[in-house]
């Protein structure tokens, strides 16, 4: 089967010169360049990685390669040659013919990029059928063969399913089938594994690498993750604020980066193995007073069964203890129940069994049963500061709200306290009058943190606080979290999917899998010598900055 679908055409070379894409933020505004003066050339059959932080223009370039600009943007200048075809000079009709035929695109979030109202098969074969490349039945056969090659379960019938009926990793593979079905000369992969769990990412990466190599297709791989890029790319183009910083082979970038910015990116990407000096790593039980204690917590949803348990269990028999001023990291993949645990402690989701006590007092399940003191003492910081901060309120109003609710300050005391809070999170006082929309991602997360600190809590629940941030920015936030703990003695329940961030902040570590705790212990020992096979797999799945890392991973370890 694999023989019949292997590529008959080889990839084409890609040359880009002087590419400039401009944007007009609103009507009547002057056009500002998003990317400017982008020049590179890629020999046929090789893989180029575009790497940079949020807003560096890497996705804009990837889309420009297909002659596409997002709403409000315009391909202003430059030349893109795919083999003999000049992409930017092509008519709309020619472009339509190129896309989904000679050039294929794999989007970041397959969950969003698949139409929820149509079956996988209909969407996978749509392009080639529309372009008249093959008949519907031939296309279906080829799609099934690709499903098998991409190791999707039940390749004969999975095409009949709708996107919500398959997992994220499977959708990402189905999207690869959608891209490969036309035997494209150029494949553009836009952060294709970013939305996946680490253990899933490995498998998908290995599959992608294999199929691209086997077909000899030219590929452009967009990513913010240097370690991922090191596994798949031949060349790396480092972007900063829409301009080329460095273009070199992947070995050169890793071992001898020439540009300052590249070196900074490398710094942030290397896992810090050394422990922060100011942190003691002794056994948690011996430090501080008992703050939060959970005994045999069960959380679920759905109607109660005959045994008194809900139909769907999210958390099962979870116990933990967190002392004052300590930090407990909770790690697990999506669906492991780590956010549910945070919500249960915060009083947003009622558990159906088990005890939660806070400062040696029973903590009522529901918010309505808790007193003012308990409200104030437990604060939550959410992943997305964008959604957690009211976009219509100024930063001052956001920070004053908890002060008014919990404390009897005079106006002057309140203003002084707001300034103190800003100092704590290292924000200038000029941000007070602006709304969250005018702040950068890192600044918003600092405001988010200051809002939680305003209540003077003893416990802050941090739910994926750095996952929406770029590596350099998230480094700064993690440092801030450590400083705050040392200065204020606040305890953290730190929820993350990323082991390296947990390591930077936490004393203890709990590993959750499918609602159960599989490992619980002091943080450094657990990470350095994991006892449970799943913890080992989680740690082993984090890509390392070596080009041969992916090829050495044993696929069947999961």
């Amino acid at each position, binding site marked *: 089967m694999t023989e019949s679908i292997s590529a008959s055409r080889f990839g084409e070379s890609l040359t880009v010169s002087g590419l400039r894409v401009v944007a007009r933020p609103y009507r009547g505004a002057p056009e500002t360049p998003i990317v400017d003066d982008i020049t590179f050339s890629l020999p046929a059959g090789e893989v180029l990685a575009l790497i940079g932080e949020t807003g560096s223009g890497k996705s804009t370039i990837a889309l420009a390669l297909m002659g596409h600009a997002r709403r409000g943007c315009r391909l202003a200048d430059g030349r893109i040659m795919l083999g003999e075809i000049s992409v930017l000079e092509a008519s709309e009709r020619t472009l339509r013919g190129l896309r989904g035929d000679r050039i294929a*695109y794999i989007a970041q979030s397959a969950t*969003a990029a698949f139409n*929820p109202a149509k079956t996988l098969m209909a969407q996978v074969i749509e392009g080639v059928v529309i372009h008249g490349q093959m008949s519907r039945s031939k296309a279906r056969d080829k799609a099934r063969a690709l499903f098998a090659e991409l190791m999707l379960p039940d390749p004969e019938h999975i095409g009949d399913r709708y996107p919500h009926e398959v997992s994220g990793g499977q959708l990402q593979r189905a999207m690869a089938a959608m891209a490969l079905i036309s035997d494209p000369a150029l494949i553009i992969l836009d952060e294709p594994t970013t939305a996946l769990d680490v253990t899933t990412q490995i498998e998908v990466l290995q599959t992608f690498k294999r199929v691209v190599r086997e077909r000899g297709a030219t590929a452009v791989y967009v990513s913010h993750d240097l370690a991922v890029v090191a596994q798949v790319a031949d060349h790396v183009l480092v972007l900063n604020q829409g301009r080329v910083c460095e273009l070199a082979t992947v070995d050169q970038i890793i071992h001898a980066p020439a540009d300052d910015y590249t070196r900074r990116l490398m710094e942030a990407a290397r896992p810090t193995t050394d422990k922060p000096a100011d942190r003691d790593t002794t056994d948690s039980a011996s430090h501080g007073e008992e703050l939060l204690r959970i005994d045999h917590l069960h959380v679920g949803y759905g109607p109660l069964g005959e045994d008194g348990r809900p139909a769907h269990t999210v958390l099962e028999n979870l116990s933990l203890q967190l002392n004052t001023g300590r930090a407990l990291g909770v790690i697990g993949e999506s669906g492991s129940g780590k956010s549910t645990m945070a919500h249960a402690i915060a009083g947003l989701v009622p558990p159906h069994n088990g005890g939660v006590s806070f400062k040696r007092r029973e903590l009522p399940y529901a918010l309505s049963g808790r007193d003012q003191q308990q409200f104030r003492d437990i604060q939550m910081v959410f992943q997305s500061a964008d959604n957690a901060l009211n976009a219509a309120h100024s930063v001052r109003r956001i920070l004053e709200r908890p002060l008014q609710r919990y404390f009897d300050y005079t106006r002057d005391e309140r203003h002084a306290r707001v300034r103190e809070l800003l100092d704590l999170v290292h924000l200038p006082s000029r941000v007070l009058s602006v709304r969250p929309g005018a702040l950068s991602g890192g600044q918003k997360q600092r405001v988010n943190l200051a809002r939680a600190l305003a209540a003077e809590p003893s416990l802050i629940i941090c739910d994926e606080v750095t996952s929406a941030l770029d590596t350099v920015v998230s480094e700064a936030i993690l440092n801030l979290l450590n400083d705050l703990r040392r200065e204020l003695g606040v305890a953290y329940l730190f929820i993350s999917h990323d082991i390296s961030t947990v390591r930077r902040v936490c004393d203890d570590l709990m590993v959750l899998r499918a609602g159960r705790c599989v490992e619980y212990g002091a943080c450094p020992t657990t990470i350095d010598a994991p006892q449970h096979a799943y913890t080992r797999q989680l740690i082993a799945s984090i890509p390392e900055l070596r080009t041969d890392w992916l090829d050495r991973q044993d696929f069947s370890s999961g």
Partner: protein
Amino acid sequence: MHSPVLRLIGRQLGSALITLILVSLVIFAITSLLPGDTAKLVLGQFATPDQVAALRAKLGLDQPAPLRYLHWLGGLMTGHLGVSASNDMPVSTLIAQRLPASLLLAGITTLVSVPLALGIGMISAMYRGRLADSALNVVTLAMVAIPDFLVAILLILLFAVHLGWLPALSYISSIHGVGDFLRVYAMPVATLCTVLVAQMARMTRIALINELDSAYIEMARLKGIGPVRCVLVHALPNAIGPIANAIALSLSYLMGGIVIVETIFNYPGLASLMVDAVSNQDLPLVQACAMLFCAFYLLLILLAELAALLANPKLRTR
């Protein structure tokens, strides 16, 4: 019985029943509060108190209100809508005479306005921010802003008085052939469509634009799918939920609009019957018409919910 479609129909019918009972209570309370006495109105100002008392007894008006309500509700359940107070005919007969004409007018209006509105909404959404969109925007805004009775009068002035092309009054009995049919229905339907099309087109545009901004549409474009197919095959199935609800809400306006239009064009439908009933204090007739309009509205909502459910595989296959 476990199919989500049946479950939805069951749930909707149940809540529709409760709504209808609540509405019947409100209608009964309001009509009871209307000033004046039906018996006196029917018999004229020279009736003796004895005559009035006798008619009141015959109409059941001498009984306490809760009893009258229960009596009426019982009648509704068993299909007896009561007897018209002003002309002594069963309400069901009166309604049956007029209902088909109103349904025909509403039906034709729906058939004209829905496709027109969907078309305008799709074109607006596809050419968002461009000239075609702006032009359609201005037109639909104007159409929403002008009250329907004004549209009707302007149409009559232009086509009936000045140009003399169309009859100012809609006499259904004068219809002999397709030409007559079109001439009679042109203005009433056009009047009703003005507001309806504008509302539905704007809602369609917004629902589609929401979808057209999503990642799966960008993906479809990057697969080389043309703009028309993107809208029809990709965006539309996902926008059907909100669009169907907007259509149902707009069409429920139709029942109110029809009262005005039928009155202006002297169209022999349900509305003129209801207007006469109100001015005659013919409570059984008013109540029956109001219940009918309410039931029609609930039916529209049920259909909209069904359309939304059938268009969404996530709900359909659960």
